[in-house]
């Protein structure tokens, strides 16, 4: 995704500056905060979104590669299946195990899978962070 974002950034930026008539056209930032791209959100599912870039390419982006701000925007815009999470001390905590599972299996490549750390504790999470 990093290479793709680099390659399309200039084109995408130009397209975005030309006018964002569609509310789903916006700048998207990755989870490192280093890369941003403009694209139209055309579809979404439990673990990814698809963006239409200004050069006509479509790119599927795993949710876990999006910034927390972008994921929050998706929730606010009514994409109700987007996972609910809380960021505490820079770590994102998912409230629902199914959401965590979807993020952990973020792509079709098993090699990209991540383990889930489930923190079971007596009390509200905020008391431990």
């Amino acid at each position: 995704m990093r290479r793709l974002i680099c390659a399309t950034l200039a084109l995408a930026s130009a397209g975005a500056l030309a006018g964002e008539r569609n509310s789903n056209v916006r700048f998207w930032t990755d989870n490192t905060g280093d890369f941003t791209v403009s694209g139209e959100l055309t579809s979404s599912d439990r673990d990814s979104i698809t963006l239409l870039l200004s050069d006509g390419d479509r790119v599927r982006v795993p949710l876990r590669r999006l910034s927390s701000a972008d994921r929050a925007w998706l929730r606010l815009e009514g994409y109700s299946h987007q996972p609910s999470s809380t960021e505490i001390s820079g770590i994102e905590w998912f409230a629902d195990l199914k959401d965590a599972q979807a993020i952990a299996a973020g792509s079709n490549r098993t090699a990209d899978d991540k383990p889930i750390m489930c923190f079971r504790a007596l009390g509200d999470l905020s008391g431990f962070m």
Partner: protein
Amino acid sequence: MIRESLKADFVCHAINTEGDPSAGGSHAHAPSDKPGQCSDGVANQNVQLLFLTPRGEIFHTVSGFRGPSSLKQELAFTKLLFNKIKTDPDSAKSIVQRAHRERRDDQSGSRGSSGRNRSRSGGGGNLRRSLQFDYTFAKKYPLLPMQEFERNPRLLVGNGSSMFVSGAAVGGRIGG
């Protein structure tokens, strides 16, 4: 270091175990309380880490509190084990059991260890007990689905809420 590892290598999920039959009732603290001194392995009834595959199968557990150094070792072990599972999913259960058995042997020094890890198991009764919980769980329930665990969380650390509920607390150990 730990924070960076959690951000990069894990997906984090939290569960409040209040009311859970395995959760202890002793030494409750308000979230705003200043933390007291803790040694590795204490509060195994009240704090646990479960490490799951994306399919929701438990492949490693850490019962009780862990300090930064110990937690770092646990995360390293978990990452290594998860990668092994990924590369040979058909043998995942036996991989989990073997990895925990080797780890237990290494900690106890029974494999001719130089003693490098003995300090972990020798760190006190709490830690020894927690490590035993974790080893026994992995041996008996490798890749247990989380849904099944949630139906009976006592599988890991026994009963915590009352010594009258089951015989698990006989001996006077109640709560964390």
